[in-house]
């Protein structure tokens, strides 16, 4: 399995999804080698300890590469510069730019594949597709036909608000075309793949993400909840997640209710713009920013909110909605999302329909009964989710792929 990130070093849903799926699969007795890019000598972590696999074995391999999740070309250049990754005399071990690095990572994957024994290659999102293709080639050289599965958690169209960067799009398309099977995280995403990449829908299997509910002592609820109604935004602050829509919604609500506070959790390339815009709109004292949070703080953020809003303009899945529900927080989510296909106890609105968004959020804030019902039923609904389901479907797909006549 080729991935970008894995908890606890994860910055988004992809890491969480890989973690859930991997755990589900190992519980079903699958042995997994999880390959990750990592900077040599960077703060390391014993992944093994985090994941006590029950039946199957889980191994981690890292490839020394300067790739980070959700990276863009510019972010790569900044990263290389900030961390002084240029070697002596300006010569660098790492690629001069993002795509060169993705390529270098792919070739390194070939070497990893040569000394491994595996039945399926499973890749998560565009940065790893080429690595998967190379790994399959390596197996072929050794006389083995190994199926390649491309798992798509988000497309470049989702991430850029419909303005894909050509080369990323190309790598996605290449991976999706080359793959023997494709796993899409929702019907919504399957549609995107068929529409924008002209891929045969028969090759695409929808496996929805899930969440594991565990009974745990709840984190304490932040004090501010006693004094204000809290509306939460939690996600990367990028065009995809609709933070600008969130501000428009906040402005409208602030006009009618002075006591509501809007909390924005996350970081991203639109961060500064959104902070400045909140001041511009005259709601600088109403919109509070909590930056990127991790661990227990994420739970506290969900628990602090009276309502969680996910106004994404295009959300392949939207695991945060499940997380919010797990902590008993009512959710209002965009219709342009995968998660809306699988949950019932939520309010669903078109992301662009600010009026209706405002209306739904106000209703949740105003009617305690509605809030309590959504909260309680939501938790019950979440309890029925488990990563066992997607893992089972995934395993079925593996079996089918392995049996396929070549």
């Amino acid at each position, binding site marked *: 399995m080729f991935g970008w990130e894995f908890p606890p070093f994860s910055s988004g849903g992809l890491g969480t999804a890989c973690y859930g799926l991997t755990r589900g699969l190992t519980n079903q007795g699958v042995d997994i080698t999880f390959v990750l890019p990592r900077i040599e000598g960077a703060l390391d972590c014993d992944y093994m300890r985090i994941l006590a696999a029950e039946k199957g074995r889980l191994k981690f391999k890292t490839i020394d590469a300067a790739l980070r999740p959700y990276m863009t070309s510019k972010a790569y250049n900044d990263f290389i510069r900030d961390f002084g990754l240029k070697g002596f005399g300006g010569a660098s071990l790492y690629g001069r730019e993002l795509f060169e690095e993705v390529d270098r990572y792919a070739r390194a994957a070939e070497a990893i594949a040569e000394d491994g024994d595996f039945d399926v290659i499973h890749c998560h999102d565009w940065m790893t597709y080429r690595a998967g293709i190379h790994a399959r080639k390596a197996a072929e050289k050794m006389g083995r036909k190994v199926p390649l599965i491309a798992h798509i958690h988000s497309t470049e169209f989702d991430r850029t608000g419909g303005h894909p960067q050509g080369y990323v799009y190309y790598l996605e398309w290449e991976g999706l075309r080359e793959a023997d099977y494709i796993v899409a995280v929702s019907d919504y995403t399957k549609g995107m793949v068929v529409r924008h990449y002209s891929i045969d829908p028969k090759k695409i299997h929808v496996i929805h993400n899930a969440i594991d509910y565990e009974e745990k002592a709840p984190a304490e609820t932040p004090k*501010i909840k006693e*004094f*204000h109604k809290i509306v939460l935004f939690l996600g990367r602050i990028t065009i995809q997640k609709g933070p600008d829509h969130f501000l428009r919604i906040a402005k409208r609500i602030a006009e009618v209710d002075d006591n509501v*506070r809007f909390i924005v959790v996350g970081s991203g390339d639109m961060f*500064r713009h959104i902070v400045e815009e909140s*001041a511009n709109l005259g709601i*600088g*004292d109403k919109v509070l920013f909590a930056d990127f949070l991790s661990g227990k*703080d994420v739970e506290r953020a969900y628990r602090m909110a009276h309502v969680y809003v996910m106004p994404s303009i295009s959300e392949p899945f939207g695991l945060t909605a499940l997380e919010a529900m797990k902590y008993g927080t009512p959710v209002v989510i965009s219709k342009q999302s995968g998660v809306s296909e699988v949950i019932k106890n939520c309010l669903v609105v078109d992301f662009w329909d600010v009026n209706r968004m405002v209306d739904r959020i106000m209703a949740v804030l105003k009617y305690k009964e509605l809030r309590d019902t959504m909260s309680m039923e939501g938790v019950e609904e979440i309890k029925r989710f488990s990563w066992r389901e997607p893992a089972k479907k995934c395993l079925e797909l593996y079996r089918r792929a392995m049996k396929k006549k070549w």
Partner: protein
Amino acid sequence: MVAVCFYFQVHQPYRLRKYPVFDIGANSDYFNHEKNREIMLKVADKCYLPANRVILDLINEMGEEFRVSYSITGVALEQFREYCPEVLESFQRLVDTGQVELLDETYYHSLSFLYSEREFIEQVKMHRKAMKELFGYKPRVFRNTELIYNNRLASLAEEMGYKGVLAEGADHILGWRSPNFLYKPVTAKRIRLLLKNYRLSDDIAFRFSERSWEGWPLTAEKFANWISKINGNGNCVNLFMDYETFGEHQWESTGIFDFLRRLPAEILKHPDNEFMTPSEVVREFKPVAELDVHNVVSWADVERDLSAWLGNPMQMSAIECLYRLEDSVKESGDEKLLEDWRRLQTADHFYYMCTKWFNDGDVHKYFNVYERPHDSFIAFMNVLNDMGIRLKIHKNWREKNGKEKNNEGKKECEEIFGGRYSRELLLGQ
């Protein structure tokens, strides 16, 4: 005859910590005590203590002939007391020589003049009181935060009994006129206006160690020579700057202390030169003209305006939200709340939110304790939200118990929020 008038500004803000959302309503300790202490000790070591030593030596060596003036903000004084009492003692020793003049300003180094005259006057009175109690001194000249000035400020300062007021000798208010004379504000009767000679002041404050500057290296001889040249077309040269210039903005290794040590003697080599304090300048010279300053000027950046503090929507939003709380903060009768609110008025908080990154941005960046101006805005707004909750608790309490029980409400708030009364400690009330 040229009178050299040195005026140094001494100030350290109470910097906020990165106050997180989760603390709102739960923790009303807003300030980064560790950082404030660290910076105070660093600046004391690099600037205040060595510079005061140099000035004291100069006074001892040269006797009556050498004079300087300072204004020290209330928040700097509080932090001296808290973190580094020997700095306060060394200033007291300087004032005891009788050759050092102290100026008044707003206690909290605030922009209150622009937002609330009531608050402004209260803060000036607080500063006056601190001068009396700590130095046994009654200032006669006023300087506003960051030399923010217009006709109205002159009128207010006059009403409060000051004989002189300081301002930036900005080109756009002077036009063809020279800053090297005493002026009279157009709206005032008795008060006089001293204007900063920004070219000569900035030669020391900003360009002293700038190797690409044609004046580099700046020696005491060279500078004294420039001053002497003013003889015949000027009465006074007003050299106003941050005291932190010595040792902090210009490090000791640049030779700034040697420069300071040698400069007075070099200046006095010319028989027509002398040193004066602002109030002596006011007493000695006659104003040459009236100056009409309708729009606000300051000594900051190339614009000499308010854009360093009030130049973007974040800054405007923050300061407007802050001053909107004035009435309810004062009504609450909670001293600790009032003090916190006032500490938030310190201009530095808004300076940290500045997004002008070019040219002056370098200076901004140097002074900024936050990584991004946005971070300081966020911390500030979070703090205001906590303050809003404290006010709400007061209001609820008062509504429940009637106004006469206000004091008990206050006590309850103290119990909830704790905290010391450092201003009372300082002023011995």
